[in-house]
């Protein structure tokens, strides 16, 4: 009973927040509503007792990705008027994509996997069952190759991103802390012996 109430609260919040992401004029507000949407879906996953996925969603998307996203959005001076100019022109194409998505999702949801008797109620796992452990074991045994390939792709992406940002040899005046630590008195200071001027 409590689970149902919590589900409906977070479900309503999720739908509301997702709508606001699209509707909001201010991109910062839209990004913050996206954070709320992530949060609510994490709560719904928690209800399904998928605690690892739920917390990973908060940790990765809310804690890291959206922070950087907000960072960029806050710095940019986005003019919504110029973005909205093409609204009428792109409307037919947008509608086409929307209907296509709707149909595909309808097909998926009405398939055998999502019939109501497959998800009749909130399933309760047995005591002491660790979601994280199970996921880790499956990932590192059954899906080891896929996991490794994903890791390799991510590594390539990181190397590419770094090399793109480092492509220009930048002239920076940032001091090297190593040099600063090893510097000696002789490098900075020169004592010149001079005779005192005599009295005239």
């Amino acid at each position, binding site marked *: *009973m*409590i689970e149902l109430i919590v589900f409906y609260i977070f479900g309503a919040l999720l739908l509301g927040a997702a709508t606001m992401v699209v509707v909001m004029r201010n991109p*910062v507000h839209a990004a*913050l509503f996206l*954070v709320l949407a992530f949060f609510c879906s994490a709560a719904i996953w928690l209800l399904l007792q998928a*605690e*690892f996925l739920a*917390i*990973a969603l*908060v*940790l990765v998307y*809310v*804690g*890291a990705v959206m*922070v*950087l996203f*907000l*960072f960029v959005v*806050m*710095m940019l001076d986005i003019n919504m008027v110029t973005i909205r100019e093409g609204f009428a022109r792109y409307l037919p194409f947008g509608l086409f994509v929307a209907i296509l998505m709707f149909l595909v999702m309808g097909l998926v949801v009405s398939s055998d996997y999502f019939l109501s008797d497959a998800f009749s109620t909130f399933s309760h796992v047995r005591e002491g069952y*660790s*979601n*994280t452990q199970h996921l880790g074991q499956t990932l590192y045994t059954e899906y080891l190759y896929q996991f490794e390939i994903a890791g390799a792709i991510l590594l390539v992406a990181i190397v590419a991103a770094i090399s793109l940002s480092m492509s220009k040899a930048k002239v920076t005046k*940032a001091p090297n*802390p190593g040099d600063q630590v090893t510097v000696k008195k002789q490098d900075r200071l020169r004592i010149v012996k001079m005779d005192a001027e005599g009295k005239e």
Partner: protein
Amino acid sequence: MEAIYQFINQQLLMPMSAMMFPADLQAEGLYLMQTSLKVMAILSPVLFTVAYFTYAERKIIGFIQGRIGPNRVGFFGFKLWGLGQPIADAVKLIVKEIVIPSGANKTLFVIAPIVSLAPSLAAWAVVPFDDTKVLADINAGLLYILALTSLAVYGVIIAGWASNSKYAFLGAIRSAAQIVAYEIAMGFALVGVLVAAGSLNLGDIVMAQSGSVFHWFWLPLLPLFLIYFISGVAETNRAPFDVAEGESEIVAGFHVEYGGMAFSVFFMAEYANMVLISVLSAIMFLGGWLSPLQGILPESVLSSEVIGSLIGPGLHWLLIKTSIFMFFFLWLRATFPRYRYDQIMRLGWKVFIPITIVWLVVVSALVVAGVPPWFD
């Protein structure tokens, strides 16, 4: 403690739930009320600690700098070394007007302090105080902690942006970059703890450290221990990493436009975060509620009726260990000058993260090889 809880449960909660909820919701209603009571039992001491932590800070830094610190405000005409100071401060801040700048985004401006305080209080749900006393004994406790500490940055970012002020925005951006950098090192340090303990449950992590002082994880995970605590100082935006506030450069950073209670919620969040980092360091690296005399004295002494309650494992050891870390926070602030910004970034990305990755490999090797006395 147990007796008081049972008494309240039977005399107050059960009749109340019988009155308030319909018969088919009785069990759920009782559970909700019991949980609320437990939450209050945890959060009231935490907030009390936060209030007196500010007093301790002013006193300790005063002594370090050869001053006296607050010594005027007492109770009923007695000065009592200034013990009434936090209460006077709280009254002052509550009574003050909250000024919302005309160019500010009102909703976000008000939400920001709440967003910054909430995660630091919510994280206490999984903190184990004893082998039985924990609010939510969940399997993914460590992940939960990690997720919640990563949310603390939102309060700062939202406050900086909603204030519509250049200083506030500069502070918010500095803080966001810093927290993102140190969060990775912190996460890797926690992965090391996870590998060593073989569990994400904080209670199991403490139990994995039982044996003696040298079984605690501070020894096999020494670099991770230091990195975790230093990253914790950076995450809470405390000196010497307090560039987000940087009084001498950007006035007060992200909360420059805040006053009264709105400011004091930020203030409370900062101190609550410090207490949280301290208690987590104590749990993950200093054996939580375990007694340091374990392994020195025989088990029969530690579990005996009278002496055992003093020197045996218990809540008081956790509190003592937490206080040590809390003192470190103040000591650091009184000792070190503020870091230069580029050096903060260098320390986080180029020093801490490589060290944690290397030590992760070392710890994994130790665990696989079953090196005594920790992993046999």
